[in-house]
């Protein structure tokens, strides 16, 4: 990308790319007095620490941090669509998107059907190298992330969630040399469990069963994060109640929690987002300053005190 911008004619010094560790190169950059704005993507812990560190200098900050995005599945939904979209959101990109689905909040009436179908779908994915077009899911991005995902699967088991599929490193068929984890579904997860609260960033879905819409909203909002969310229902009244009540910066109606379009503001609330949203018109607000110019062409001294 840097080569591309050089070829496009970016002047010297305007674009610099520094490859380095956060604790050295990163630390040096954020603490330099010439730096007047920081756009950060990473963990909530690092983002909030960084914000605290630079606040004294009045640095403008924008941060895109953790997420624990829920889908809410209501009884009158199109079940095929809800299952397919949840699978896409939870296991696509190996669950490594800030907008990935990690919680499915499902009303009791349809929970058995949802769970049966999502497990079936999770098992149907073919794992493997990304450059083989027949494969659906790739590996975790590195060894550290791979170990984190496996650690959370152990935590889920220990906390008493019911493991329905996956739950381990994927092996055989060319997978042994990569950081592959089987798509994993936990059922009967409760809101206090760590796998319902902490970001895993892997192909792990927690199913939380609830009795009705109101409990679904309480559970969906019972999170420190608020990036993305989805609702699956064909009841328009519930769609708009959901939109009113959900605590997230972005929400999707009958569509996966993932992604966002290039010209539309992107970001979250609660411990997910800080400062102006990335992308779209709000991105310009972050990178610019508004200057107000008062013009008086009377040629006389200003009258009155209304200013």
């Amino acid at each position, binding site marked *: *990308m*840097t080569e*591309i*911008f050089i*070829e*496009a*004619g*970016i*002047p*010297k*010094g*305007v*674009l*610099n*790319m520094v*490859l*380095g560790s956060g604790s*050295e*190169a990163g*630390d*040096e*950059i954020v603490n*330099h*007095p*010439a730096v007047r*704005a920081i756009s950060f993507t990473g963990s909530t812990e690092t983002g909030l620490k960084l914000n605290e560190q630079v606040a004294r200098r009045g640095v*403008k900050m924008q941060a895109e941090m953790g997420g624990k995005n829920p889908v809410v599945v209501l009884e009158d939904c199109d079940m095929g669509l809800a299952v397919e979209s949840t699978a896409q959101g939870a296991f696509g*990109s190996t669950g490594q998107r800030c907008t990935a689905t990690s919680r499915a909040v499902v009303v009791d009436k349809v929970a058995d059907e949802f769970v049966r179908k999502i497990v079936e779908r999770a098992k149907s994915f073919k794992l493997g190298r*990304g*450059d083989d077009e027949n494969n*659906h899911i*790739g590996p*975790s*991005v*590195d060894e550290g992330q*791979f170990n984190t995902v496996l650690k959370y699967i152990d935590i889920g088991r220990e906390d008493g969630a019911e493991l329905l599929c996956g739950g381990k490193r994927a092996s055989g068929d060319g997978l042994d*040399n*990569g*950081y592959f984890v089987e798509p994993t579904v936990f059922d009967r997860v409760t809101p206090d469990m760590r796998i319902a609260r902490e970001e895993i960033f892997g192909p792990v879905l927690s199913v939380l069963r609830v009795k009705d819409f109101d409990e679904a909203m309480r559970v969906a909002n019972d999170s420190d994060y608020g990036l993305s969310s989805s609702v699956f229902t064909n009841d328009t009244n519930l769609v708009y109640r959901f939109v009113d009540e959900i605590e997230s910066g972005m929400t999707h109606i009958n569509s996966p929690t993932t*992604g966002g*379009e*290039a*010209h539309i503001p992107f970001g979250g609330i609660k411990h997910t987002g800080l400062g102006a949203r990335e*992308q*779209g018109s709000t991105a*310009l607000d972050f*990178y*610019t*300053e*508004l*200057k*107000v*110019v*008062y*013009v*008086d062409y*009377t040629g006389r001294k*200003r*009258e009155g005190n*209304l200013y």
Partner: protein
Amino acid sequence: MTTYRSFIDGEWINSTSGRTAPNINPANIDDLIGTIELASREEARRAVEAAYNAFREWKRTPAPARGRIVSRAGRLMEERKEELAQAITREEGKTISEARGETQRAINVVEFCAGESRRMNGETIPSELPANFAYTIYEPHGDRDPRLETRAGARRRKHSRVQAGDEHAADRNAYDRDLYRSGNSERSLEHGARFG
């Protein structure tokens, strides 16, 4: 095998830190794609100062002229889309279809930004007083700090590479004068590129 280096003040630099990190294909850990040279604190500081020094000219380059560079980058990304997608797949493990989608999204962001460069409109606001009004303009965020000027200047003298840039100091002042005289965006872009 590739060596990945930092790009600072218009140059690919060999880091003096002596520290490296491997770039490994997560789908096949025997596939070592390259080695990343990790920048030192001093190199990171130089990157910030390079950006700081470039800021004045870049800020004064009219937004549509800046946008033209971004737009050109978008076209180059389009031309190299498959290469970028393959690199993402090899470095991150994403499926190629996800990697192509990610690349397209990046192109879309670049296209949006290039387009916005021609729409940096403010507003005109009537006053409650006769023969008065107000208007707004959007300026690039960032400022020049005289204390930093001195510090950056002192450091600049220490670095021979940046010293060469100092020869343009006279040009730069002439540029400031010309800018307001001509108001020609094509010309100021060329000028910006010359200092670059």
